[in-house]
């Protein structure tokens, strides 16, 4: 085995070990289980976004839309239709997929900065729907008075409602499943083609690759997992709020991906961890947290554009 490959395996093993044992050590480092769960949820969303930004070379700045659609889909289903967690998640994810498929068809031939602008703008439609449709979505106050339900699988009952630790493993299960699916997709010929498009779209086109189709599929995969992360997010909070649809949220996903390292599969997890912990810390310390977060963005862009893992790789 090449040394590089065994390093990689060791890193993977370490990441999973840390994630699996998180409930046992997070208290010791000054965190709490819900914060750890939030990190995993956000890392899923950022990894999903990075599938598009980092591995297809397409810049979306509107992923909060699908994160939020997943969330509201799940929340509304559980609140109004069926108090069933898994069903709510399914509805949320399907909602995100349908919206992504339609919007994707409209924008898939756009590139670069134009694509980014249009994704930002489209995201705002859903924000205003959630914001304005008071009697259903709760408007600005968010969708409350509902909560995630324990899961009955016939032979086993999983109490994700009362046990925060159980819920963490529930989230981690979906995180692992999603990351495995994305890693698998990236290793397949399809994923290699995405890298080819990222590196040189014109050449890929001359080779006969249906570029727009590939980008649309990559967009769809990315939005699907962003939607799934959104469902987990509202389940974590037992609450959906319009801010998770807002473009500011989209920007936060992008900074997580960049901060960790866009070219690395684990980058978004690292970025999400740093960002969430820092945000949590700064907003509890000072009311000027917006300035700090803003400054943080500027510093990263100017001095650490390759992200943490990018720097480690170079060193």
């Amino acid at each position: 085995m090449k040394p590089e490959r065994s390093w990689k395996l060791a890193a993977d093993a370490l990441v999973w070990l840390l994630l699996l044992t998180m409930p046992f050590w997070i208290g010791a480092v000054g965190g709490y289980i819900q914060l750890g769960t939030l990190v995993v949820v956000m890392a899923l969303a950022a990894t999903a976004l990075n599938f598009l930004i980092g591995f297809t070379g397409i810049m979306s700045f509107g992923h909060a839309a699908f994160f939020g659609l997943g969330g509201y889909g799940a929340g509304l289903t559980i609140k109004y239709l069926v108090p069933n967690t898994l069903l709510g998640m399914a509805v949320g994810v399907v909602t995100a997929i349908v919206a992504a498929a339609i919007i994707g068809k409209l924008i898939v031939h756009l590139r670069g900065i134009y694509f980014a602008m249009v994704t930002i703008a489209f995201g705002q439609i859903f924000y205003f729907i959630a914001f304005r449709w008071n009697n259903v979505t709760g408007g600005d106050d968010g969708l409350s008075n509902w909560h995630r339900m324990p899961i009955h699988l016939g032979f086993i009952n999983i109490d994700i409602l009362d046990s925060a630790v159980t819920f963490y493993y529930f989230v981690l299960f979906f995180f692992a499943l999603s990351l495995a699916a994305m890693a698998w997709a990236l290793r397949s010929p399809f994923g290699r083609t995405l890298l080819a498009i990222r590196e040189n779209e014109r050449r890929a086109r001359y080779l006969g690759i249906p570029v727009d189709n590939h980008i649309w599929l990559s967009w769809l995969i990315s939005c699907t997992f962003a939607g799934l992360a959104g469902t987990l997010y509202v389940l974590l909070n037992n609450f959906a709020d319009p801010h998770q649809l807002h473009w500011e949220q989209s920007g936060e996903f992008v900074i997580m991906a960049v901060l960790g390292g866009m070219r690395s599969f684990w980058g978004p997890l690292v970025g999400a961890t740093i960002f969430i912990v820092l945000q949590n810390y700064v907003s509890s310390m000072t009311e000027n947290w917006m300035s700090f977060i803003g400054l943080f963005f500027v510093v990263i862009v100017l001095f650490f554009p390759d992200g943490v893992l990018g720097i480690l790789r170079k060193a």
Partner: protein
Amino acid sequence: MTELILYNVFNGLIIGAFYALMALGLSLILNLSGVINFAHGGFLAFGAYFAYSLAPYFGFWGALAAAPVLTALLGFLVERLLIRRLYGRDPLYSLLLTFGLAFMLQDGARIVWGSETLPFSVPGSLNNALSAEYFFLTGYRVFMVALATATVAALFAVLRWTRIGMRIRAGVVDLETVSALGVNIGRLRSFNFALGIFLAGLAGVLAAGMLGLQPTIGNDLIMPSFVAIIIGGLGSLPGTLVGGLLIGVASGVTTVFFPSASEAVIYVLMALVLLVRPRGLFGEEGRQ
């Protein structure tokens, strides 16, 4: 009913004039430097607050004249210190940096001037209604539309007939050649950025007179300005202008029939334009 529709069309025009002023500034910067300036709304807020702080000393008219210039100066400094490091890099980074800058400007305005809504009074001569029948035609509103129109006309005149305007237009087409011909493009970009921020500052002063002052005053205007650019077509300033007015009126008219959709309608309009004419109404082919 006619009066109600007229009222909302006029309202839409005013809002559209704001969108157009904002979007023209964004468009200038985007066309020449390839930077989407998320912080544009923050600059607008600073324009408004500068006017608020200057008004006690120089009166409304003095503040109206000085605040946009001060804002442009701030924009010039920001370009020199931060924005210019982004040129030639992946557009992703310009989005992120100006996004962070937007946070800092908004929070900065809050720290300096507080988060409560501050009143910004316009002279009495502008405040009376011009017509008893059409109560909504106050002097200030008509003045705003007139001033916005004059500003836009002046902008187009500068771009059309002055040397620096010509250089900006040439730079949009082919910056490298302009540079090779001996034009200092660093300075050109600074001036162009400051010009864009000037428009934001002016929009800020005008908005302050209508809406009152809040650190978040620019937030509701920035997204529609993006939409105005997309609808008008990337790379076309007249397109941006038309796009701004169009979505302003569209949201004004929607207010009559379906008020809760007045914000969402502009995004639906954008989707329609992208469906029928992906490059935007006035966009050049291939510039998508």
